[in-house]
């Protein structure tokens, strides 16, 4: 069988639009989800028993129900309440909620990983709180959060492909559209697999260089 590059070059604009939507939706939902995750983590750690229990129920629900079921529920339930939103907006909401549940756990872990003794030690050395926060707490929290946040970003990019099931015009949906017209699954699926692969590899590379810049002392010790 032959590999027909013309199918890809003829439809590159459609693929580019899908790729752009995938990147856009992830780029918007990631900071949204992360910000919500910070709030959720703080409520869970400091918010009293009842709010903490509600947050932990929220987190467990989103982590233990497949994303496909979550978006089907959102897609069909919102119109029942008279809410009609564009698929892209629904997707950003779903991705943000999903990201918030996972980042809440990441941030909680990061905060809990630092013992309060470090703050006390900082005070004992005569440092001001701002200095302690900037020079002692932030570098450690970032060192914990960055690898986990990278994994979450890559997971989010991959999960966003499932949004094709509710006809969101992202990369996988666009690919299915092209295949519906041209009957060339081999070329198109290869093309989008490479696009996703390139995107996740790029995210991983950016994260690695950030890690080196944030913690040069750790990078040197790891010999990386």
């Amino acid at each position, binding site marked *: 069988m032959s590999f027909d590059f013309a199918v890809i070059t003829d439809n590159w604009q459609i693929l580019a639009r899908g790729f752009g939507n995938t990147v856009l939706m992830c780029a918007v939902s990631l900071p949204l989800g992360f910000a919500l995750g910070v709030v959720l983590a703080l409520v869970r750690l400091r918010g009293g028993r009842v709010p903490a229990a509600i947050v932990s129920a929220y987190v467990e629900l989103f982590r*233990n129900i497949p994303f496909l079921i979550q978006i089907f529920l959102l897609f069909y*339930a919102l119109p029942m309440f008279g809410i009609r939103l564009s698929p892209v907006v629904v997707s950003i909401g779903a991705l943000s909620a999903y990201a918030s549940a996972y980042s809440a756990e990441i941030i909680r872990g990061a905060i809990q990983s630092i013992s309060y003794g470090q703050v006390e030690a900082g005070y004992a050395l005569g440092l001001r709180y701002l200095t302690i926060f900037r020079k002692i707490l932030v570098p450690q929290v970032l060192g914990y959060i960055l690898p986990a946040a990278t994994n979450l970003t890559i997971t989010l990019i*991959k999960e966003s*492909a499932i949004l094709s099931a509710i006809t969101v015009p992202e990369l996988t949906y666009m690919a299915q559209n092209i295949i519906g017209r041209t009957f060339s699954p081999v070329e198109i699926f*290869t093309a989008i*697999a490479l696009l*996703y*692969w390139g995107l996740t*590899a790029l995210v991983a590379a950016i994260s690695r260089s950030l890690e080196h810049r944030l913690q040069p002392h750790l990078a040197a010790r790891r010999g990386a």
Partner: protein
Amino acid sequence: MFHFSKTLTFLPQFLTGAAITLGVSALGFLVGTLIGFGLLACGRSRWRVVRWIGALYTSFIRGTPLIVQIFVVYYVLPGLVGIDLPPLLAGVLALSFNSAAFVAEILRAGLTRIPSGQYEAAKALGLKPVVTWFKIIMPQLMRSIIPPMVNEFTMLVKASSILSVIAVAELTHTAQNIMNVTYRPVEAFCVAAVLYFIVLFSCSLLTRHLERKAGGARA
């Protein structure tokens, strides 16, 4: 607003779907573990090309969405190999190929935790490599990989819902079919969500319990 009565009459079908979900996940996990050991062997191979192929495979699987992998196995593979795959077989294969990459990483990480003194001691005692591997390394490896392996199985159960796109009759697809009969999508997906939650949450609790136990044993 919600009317569950009609949807709940299909509870036996939902439970069958849940059983198929667990079945395909278990099969995919089993075959994936076998391929994962193969990938581990690739990573430790003497030849650079083999190591390179193993690394490329792992990177590809971890860098692309499962839904695309499922489409590749279902639509592309038959064209390349020349055999038609029924959805169920294609689905199990896709899950196997997917979990293999993650299992290989778990095994690799588990092996790095075994100190090289163990190999040296076995050699000093005159044990053959096969005996060293099966009697010394494997038992220790097995103990340390159980929690991440249970976690990987949990991820696989969760991911198996995507098999509905190629019409494998698992839980999500069952919910879609029932929605088409009852015209009650939210209720159908709620029932599916509850069933998924029961399975997945018990798996995560098990993982947490095993992790705590393993952590306690080592401390």
